């Protein structure tokens, strides 16, 4: 068998060759024992891979995970309040704590990013998830080797935030004043976090920590605004 066909045996095996190429490979396989053996081996590899067992961690990783969930839990309280969920009567101090958590996380992220800046030369460009519908399965994108994006898509968040803020401004009279105060307080804290991240990015625009953090804060703001406007339209 020629190298041409040897290199395409996996495509043949996976059914990805066109009919004519497939026929040519099969004709060749009929007369080439070496290639037929190679194909059998490749089939065995594929079969073996499909039978690989799951690989549970040797130690229970949950305690370490749980310790890192706490800040998020506090932030969720704000969402529960806005969505009319089971935590409607969230005390103001707790919401302040949520905002404080945002600030501390921002300060930490900025510090961490600036600390690493001197050692990291090539960085992945995070891609904030689409704003529409908050369809954001994840924002961490694999690195395009050597590529540093000039626009990480934050403009889409800016546009969505502007729209939502306009709606909120026009209809704030429909909301309970206490709710408005709490929402505005938290939005100010989120804005502060966004501003800090933006300032830090001015000197290090491709920093993945900062870009991811900024994307998180903007998404949080969109999320809060969407839930508030949903209350307006409810």
């Amino acid at each position: 068998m020629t190298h041409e066909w040897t290199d395409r045996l996996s495509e043949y095996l996976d059914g990805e060759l066109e009919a004519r190429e497939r026929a040519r490979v099969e004709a060749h396989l009929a007369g080439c024992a070496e290639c037929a053996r190679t194909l059998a081996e490749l089939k065995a590899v594929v079969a073996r891979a499909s039978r690989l067992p799951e690989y549970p961690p040797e130690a229970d990783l949950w305690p370490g995970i749980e310790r890192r969930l706490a800040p998020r839990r506090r932030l969720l309280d704000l969402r529960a309040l806005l969505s009319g969920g089971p935590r409607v009567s969230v005390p103001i101090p707790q919401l302040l704590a949520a905002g404080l958590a945002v600030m501390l996380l921002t300060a930490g992220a900025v510090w961490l990013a600036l600390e690493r800046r001197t050692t990291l030369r090539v960085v992945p460009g995070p891609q904030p998830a689409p704003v529409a519908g908050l369809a954001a399965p994840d924002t961490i994108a694999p690195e395009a080797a050597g590529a540093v994006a000039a626009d990480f898509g934050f403009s889409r968040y800016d546009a969505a935030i502007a729209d939502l803020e306009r709606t909120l401004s026009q209809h704030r009279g429909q909301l309970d004043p206490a709710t408005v105060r709490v929402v505005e307080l938290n939005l100010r804290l989120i804005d502060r976090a966004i501003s800090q991240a933006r300032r830090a990015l001015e000197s290090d625009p491709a920093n993945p920590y900062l870009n991811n953090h900024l994307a998180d804060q903007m998404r949080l703001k969109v999320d809060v605004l969407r839930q508030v406007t949903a209350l307006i339209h409810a």
Partner: protein
Amino acid sequence: MERSDPGVTTPTTISEGLPGADDRDDVARARAGDARAFERLYRRHAARVHGLARRMMGPGPADEATQDVFVRAWEKLATFRGEAAFGTWLYRLAINLMLSRRAWLGGQRRRLDDREETLAAQTARPAMTDLGMDFEGAIGRLPEGARQVFVLHDVEGYKHGEIADMLRVTSGTSKAQLHRARMLLRRHLEA
């Protein structure tokens, strides 16, 4: 194959057999801040995520990567719209996180050719009587790109188009890397 949340593609082999109904209930609770519900999600999916981490990143960072995946999932849970199975969403998040981590470590940029000779030299014959373990070890010793494509395609069930999107390569490159990985691994199936 189903496509649900934007950017999340569901290989049939992954979505099938997962405890979707249980997940839906616990996802709803976890989204409302119920850490116990999220722990149940962790218990159901940790083995698969850890296996993925181990095969994609190696045994050393697998525990930390698994923890990072679940912490990240907790943070992103509000963005999960429930159109795909939670497991599908979680595994895609895990893959993205691991690829990003590998990129940080420089592995993504390291070209593959410099390691193939090492693997070829080590794999003339299985070194262990347990072929299963040797097969796992051989996966770990594959060149970076070939290992990623092999794990994503032959172990996790993703298609070349999806892998190409994840790795920012062409489908042709993905196919070539897969064939390369298989050709290297077949030696570990010999008696």
